[in-house]
């Protein structure tokens, strides 16, 4: 590479970095419903991707048998749901995952969910996180990301 090329590349790189700073970064995964937690401490407390996969393998059967909310999941592709939840929680806890699923508002819009549904699901998630041995403080960091989604998920 010539000196000129190197200089040009450096200039372009600087410009790109500059413009990235100037414009607000778009949410990497807007459909995931929240910005991820900064740092990887929470992700580690969830025992990384394997831990989150175990949590969701416990959580999906839990919500689909919970008498308070199981009717909501009739006819749902649970394999997809488990995969999407795993990716979403991996992403939100600061892990190296992309969410890739549908937008939180769109996917729940037609379900007519109530606060009772929302809180029941949150309770079940706490039980699944307990089972994985996720410390309560780390659980709360994830729940802090999920709680505001109530505003788009609960429509009734």
């Amino acid at each position, binding site marked *: 590479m010539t000196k000129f090329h190197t200089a040009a590349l450096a200039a372009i790189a600087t410009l790109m970095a500059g413009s990235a700073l100037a414009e607000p970064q778009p949410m990497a995964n807007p459909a995931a419903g*929240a910005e991820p937690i900064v740092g990887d401490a929470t992700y580690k407390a969830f025992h990384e991707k394997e831990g989150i996969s175990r949590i969701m393998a416990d959580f999906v059967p839990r919500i689909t048998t919970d008498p308070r909310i199981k009717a909501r999941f009739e006819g749902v592709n649970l394999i997809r749901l488990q995969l999407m939840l795993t990716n979403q929680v991996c992403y939100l806890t600061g892990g190296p995952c992309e969410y890739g699923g549908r937008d939180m508002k769109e996917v729940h819009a037609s379900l007519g969910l*109530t606060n009772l549904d929302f809180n029941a699901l949150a*309770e079940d998630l706490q039980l699944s996180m307990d089972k994985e041995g996720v410390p309560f*403080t780390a659980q709360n960091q994830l729940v*802090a*990301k999920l*709680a*505001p989604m109530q505003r788009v998920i609960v429509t*009734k």
Partner: protein
Amino acid sequence: MRRVTYFLAALALGASASAAAQAADLPFESGKLLLTGGVTNVEGVGGGGLANWATITGYETRDAIGANVHATYVGLKDYDLRTYGVGVGFYDRVELSYARQEFDTGSTGAKLGLGRGFTFNQDIVGVKVKVAGDAVYDQDRWLPQIAVGAEFKSNDKGAIIHAVGGKKDTGVDYYVSATKLVLDKSLLLNGTVRMTKANQYGLLGFGGDKHDDYRPQFEGSAAYLISKRLAVGAEVRTKPDNLGFAKETRAFDVFGAYAVNKNLSMTLAYVDLGDIATFKDQRGVYLSLQAGF
């Protein structure tokens, strides 16, 4: 013995009312996460131990009604205070409460010239309305849950109250509370400003020879959530100083609140209620039991 009876009565009432509600198919439910509705404080209002919070009592969500009964015992150096009552939360929006306080002077009554076991009784009817924010869901905003409320207090010892310089045996407290759950720090914070004339919560009447006007008082609470069942924290509460015969000072407590489940919770605290009616440093234990449905 009497205290134990209260607790048992409160629990029995809670259990049977719960069964009755289910039988009648009323919109009762247990929809909030443990402890997020707070407990019942010493005045029967949803809050901590001494302070009012902006939370609406009960485990109901915005679609239903929640209620609870409570019994509280405060054993101080020279006095005892017993409170029992009922609180109802409507649609996580409005809270109505009733509490009866019995301030038992015990053997101190004789020293005060009132007679041994002389007891001041006070009825407190409370109403609280949530006006903005949500303590639990609004984790991405700084806006706390805000509620305004009033407590209508009526004391049955008017003659004594007048004799010690108190102006009235009834009074109304007005307050605004802001409560914020900071979930990512596992913290719950609360601040309340109360406009009041109450002497010792109203147990010694309202207004006095020194002052007889509404003055803003502050109540602050901070709690750390150790687990979903257990929270520990501290509170401070300032009070007016209206009576010439005895200086009134601030109150303070450190507490632990434990939710056995959604139907039963306990609060245990160490309280320092300051000086009461010339008797200094009223410290002791606070135990409250609450049964909800």
